[in-house]
């Protein structure tokens, strides 16, 4: 393997990394290298044995491993180079990349461009500060998923799940089908955190108790989890005195949030958006560091893997172009600012010469809103939920309507006024 002439180095080989690599190669990058810390291509896709992947990208309802397989085959066919079981430990602002593995030892690379595709990590119990003891039997849902679907080990047989994010709901179904009893899924909001379809096919289908507007107030058990206390919460999400009850269980799974994994980005001097936890990017998915691009969950947490791959393709194409020393034409820079009931928007900046898709998330569920971008875009929506990402298609002609001196547009949810 020739490490001295890398055009595009991609960190991570999940649905983002592989898509970025393939696109980079298709856009003419000669030497494309994927660095993956696990033993095979695919990232977390291998532990996602459920279906729902690729409905839009492939027009088929695939499982995680099948989705990974399609991409992995293309990676091989295109001759993209892959380093498995290789951990990138450092990236410098001038794109010096340090990695290590058992075969080559410490590696020092200087690729012409880098695509960050590291995905996310899960919010842990420690970060949540759930009161109580520290017994064995507390897992984040993704770690439990790895045990159940790859290692062949089931954490316990009486499970409570805190948080109704997609991973939590998927694991509720999975554990039920492996013979465990999921005693409750406990959600602090008045609605589930993940996709509605998951609420139906993971919880309703199995009559798994879903306790909305509740939270876990204490973990019990010294050696192993023995029970959790739960309580109803008020509108400020604080437990209401007197509503506590105990649920006996031996396992607590946490599905309370994904955090884009940007330690390497930080090292490289990439500026992060505190609202997303990921790099600030423009529509080319370029970060503030020249030649470093990012796509997928590392930028912001997606609902659909299809979007992860599509976004990463933008990053891959841009990286290939950059490696060819072709300037990415950026005629102007319009910053997108989240306004009313919008938590975050990606990309955070656009130029006006191409069509662009904006991805946004709302803060709270709302009905009958008008999603607006300045005065150039408006769409009526019956309902918006934090668990379901919004997509805004902005054409370049819409953007060119903006006068040259306009440098900012606000994306917001306006309450709709009824006419009679």
């Amino acid at each position: 393997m020739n490490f001295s002439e890398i055009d595009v180095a991609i960190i991570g080989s999940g649905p983002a990394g592989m898509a970025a690599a393939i696109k980079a190669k298709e856009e003419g990058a000669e030497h494309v290298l994927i660095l993956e810390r696990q033993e095979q291509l695919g990232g977390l896709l291998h532990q996602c044995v459920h279906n729902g992947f690729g409905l839009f990208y492939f027009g088929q309802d695939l499982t995680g491993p099948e989705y990974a397989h399609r991409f992995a085959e293309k990676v091989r066919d295109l001759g993209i180079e892959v380093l498995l079981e290789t951990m990138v430990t450092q990236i410098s602002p001038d794109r010096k990349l340090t990695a290590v593995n058992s075969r080559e030892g410490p590696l020092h690379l200087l690729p012409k461009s880098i695509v960050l595709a590291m995905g996310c990590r899960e919010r842990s119990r420690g970060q949540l500060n759930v009161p109580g003891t520290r017994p064995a039997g507390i897992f984040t849902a993704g770690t439990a998923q790895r045990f159940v679907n790859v290692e062949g080990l089931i954490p316990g047989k009486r499970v409570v799940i805190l948080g109704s994010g997609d991973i939590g709901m998927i694991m509720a179904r999975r554990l039920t089908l492996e013979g465990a009893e999921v005693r409750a899924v406990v959600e602090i909001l008045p609605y589930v955190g993940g996709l509605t379809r998951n609420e139906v096919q993971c919880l309703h289908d199995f009559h798994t108790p879903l306790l909305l507007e509740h939270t876990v107030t204490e973990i019990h058990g010294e050696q192993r989890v023995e029970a959790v206390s739960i309580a109803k919460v008020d509108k400020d999400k604080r437990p209401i005195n007197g509503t506590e009850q105990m649920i006996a269980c031996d396992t607590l799974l946490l599905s309370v949030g994904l955090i884009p994994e940007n330690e390497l980005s930080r090292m490289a001097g990439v500026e992060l958006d505190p609202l997303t936890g990921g790099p600030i990017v423009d529509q080319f998915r370029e970060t503030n560091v020249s030649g470093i691009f990012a796509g997928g969950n590392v930028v912001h947490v997606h609902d659909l893997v299809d979007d992860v791959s599509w976004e990463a393709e933008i990053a891959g194409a841009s990286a290939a172009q950059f490696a060819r020393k072709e300037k990415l034409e950026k005629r102007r820079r319009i910053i997108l600012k989240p306004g009313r009931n919008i938590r975050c928007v990606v990309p955070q900046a656009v130029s006006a010469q191409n069509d662009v898709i904006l991805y946004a998330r709302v803060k709270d569920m709302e009905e009958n809103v008008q999603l607006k971008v300045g005065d150039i875009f408006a769409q009526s929506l019956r309902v918006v939920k934090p668990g379901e990402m919004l997509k805004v298609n902005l054409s370049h002609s819409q953007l060119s309507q903006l006068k040259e001196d306009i440098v900012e547009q606000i994306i917001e949810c306006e309450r709709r006024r009824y006419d009679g």
Partner: protein
Amino acid sequence: MVEEKIICIGCPLGCETTLKIDDQGEVVKIIGYKCKEGQQYVLEEYRSPVRVFTATVLTENSSRSLLPVRTNRPILKTKLMEAARALVSTRAKPPVRVGQIILANLLNTGTNVVATDDLFD
């Protein structure tokens, strides 16, 4: 005339639909769907809800503990737990390719359980 609300789960949009059902139990009108597939899906869901079943099976002679599998077509929702039990004694032995039949005719449904990943060692 009764109304039943069904969330279409044909795709992640999760459209909330309402079915109007007459006294014979026949669906006379559906509102709230956004696509043709969704309309069909919701009708099916009312009449005979089905699900794609995904799971893992234990392996033999392999360095991996499990092989992920799926049914190639949806099966009746009511048969999901039974399907899980049916796979308990199934073993996957390498070599296995994606799509290979691991268990044919699951529970006499005419649906096969196929591998969703390769298993080469």
